């Protein structure tokens, strides 16, 4: 299943946030979206996932979602968005309550998602009892439970400490390794972008426009070698040079807002 950003523009009242953003995510592909603060990355993701109606243009999809997918476009949120009154198990089960699943099927999907994210032993815990990293794992388990075609990840690691971020990034790379799921990965962290993405969409400062789409010319499996790491670092520096001046301008704009 492909996901298409088709000339998307958006404004909040007088504030123009996105301007004519277009790109296509092919099945199984991971596209990172980077850009200066306030350039509309999260707004773009909300539009792509159908949570926000764009002022102009459209989010479209093409092809068929994988069989058994209950929610082809599934979000992983920056703030985890867990129900604090529900256990880990109930949080993962939450999106499975309404489709026509039998109790047995539902439990099987919950068990599978908990197992894939290493949460089986924590199924009875409440979110407040978990660390930030474990809470995000619950968010990922909940997303996996509906068997998505494309994950829409809105800065999923930005609320976490650097060690947890590293561990979860490795998990993400593992989950996306077989190409069964694609992802739009919004981040301000260029290192994450070059490590996880097949292509990187660089947005300009507000109103966000596509400045460049940069391919990462190696498979994720190849990115662990010393040679690959130096290439990725060079790419990261190249991306930073693309957005550095605008990031400075954006920061000053935010400070003066």
């Amino acid at each position, binding site marked *: 299943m492909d996901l298409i950003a088709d000339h998307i523009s958006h404004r909040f009242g007088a504030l123009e946030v996105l301007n004519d953003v277009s790109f296509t995510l092919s099945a199984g592909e991971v596209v990172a979206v980077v850009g200066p603060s306030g350039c509309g990355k999260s707004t773009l993701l909300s539009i792509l*996932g*159908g*949570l926000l109606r764009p002022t102009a243009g459209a989010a479209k999809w093409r092809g068929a979602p994988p069989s058994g997918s209950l*929610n082809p*476009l*599934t*979000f992983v*949120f920056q*703030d985890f*968005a867990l*129900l*604090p*009154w*529900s256990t880990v198990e109930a949080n993962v089960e*939450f*999106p499975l*309550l*309404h489709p026509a699943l039998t109790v047995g099927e539902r439990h099987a999907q919950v068990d599978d998602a908990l197992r894939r994210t290493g949460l089986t032993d924590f199924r009875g815990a*409440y979110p*407040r009892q978990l660390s930030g990293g474990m809470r995000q794992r619950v968010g990922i388990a909940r997303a996996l439970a*509906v068997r998505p075609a494309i994950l829409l990840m809105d800065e999923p690691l930005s609320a976490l400490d650097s060690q947890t971020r590293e561990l979860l990034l490795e998990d993400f790379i593992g989950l996306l390794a077989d190409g069964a799921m694609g992802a739009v990965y919004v981040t301000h962290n260029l290192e994450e972008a070059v490590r996880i993405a097949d292509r990187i969409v660089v947005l300009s400062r507000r109103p966000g426009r596509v400045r460049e789409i940069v391919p990462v010319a190696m498979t994720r499996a190849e990115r662990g070698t010393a040679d690959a790491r130096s290439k990725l670092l060079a790419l990261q520096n190249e991306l930073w040079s693309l957005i550095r001046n605008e990031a400075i301008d954006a920061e000053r704009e935010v400070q003066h807002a």
Partner: protein
Amino acid sequence: MLDRGPPRAQRTDARPVAFRGAGFAPRASRHAGWIAMLVVLAVWQAAGSAGLVNSLFLPSPSAIMRAIWQLAVSGALWQHVSASLMRIGTGWILGTVAGIAVGFAIGLFNQARAIGITFISALFPIPKIALLPLLILWLGIGEEPKIATIALGVFFSTAISVYSGVDAVPRNLIRMAQSFNVPFETIVLRVIWPGALPSILAGFRISASVALLLVVSAEMIGADRGIGAFVLQAGNLMQTDQLLAGVVILSLFGLAVGKLINWLEARLLHWR
């Protein structure tokens, strides 16, 4: 300990860093409140027994306890308490059910919000007891106007706490549910209701106090049974021990309601 740095000279003139983090974290002692209460009662009793206080104006705690005992033995206590409980119970349930329904409507729907908030803002500040004469005119002189007064008082505070609670439910949770195509009624039941529950229970605490206040006021205006009527009667007859017995019963009733809501919070909000 492995210190890979160069060796440092040992000095003996170090001073401890002064602790500056004390205070601003008050904790309620489990027994201090009760001990203070017992001390006040003991002083009060001693002053009464020593004749330092005129028992007509302030009867001693033992005299008040005797009055409560006599009321209980004679059966009058239950007559008055049951009449008040019936009025409070019926009025509170009616007001709460209506308040929850209207509060949710205001919290969820544009039209209901526009209309509901205007009406609530206009009518909430009216002391509901002022409407009792009008309600008597409309509903007669039986139980109905007293129950309606209580229900009105409870309704407004409940509706406000419910829609405030609905407004306070984190929007990210609603967006999360929408992103999974969860139906509207499931979002209301599984996201908004539990999210609003802390505010709703806090509202129950307030509405129970409002109900208690209104039942006493209503019974003082137009009833021959009930704690309010009993307190007024005792005051008119200068039976201050009986009057304070009624006040103690009201206080116990308020405490019981508080305990009940604490229990509900512990059961329903254990996740906090």
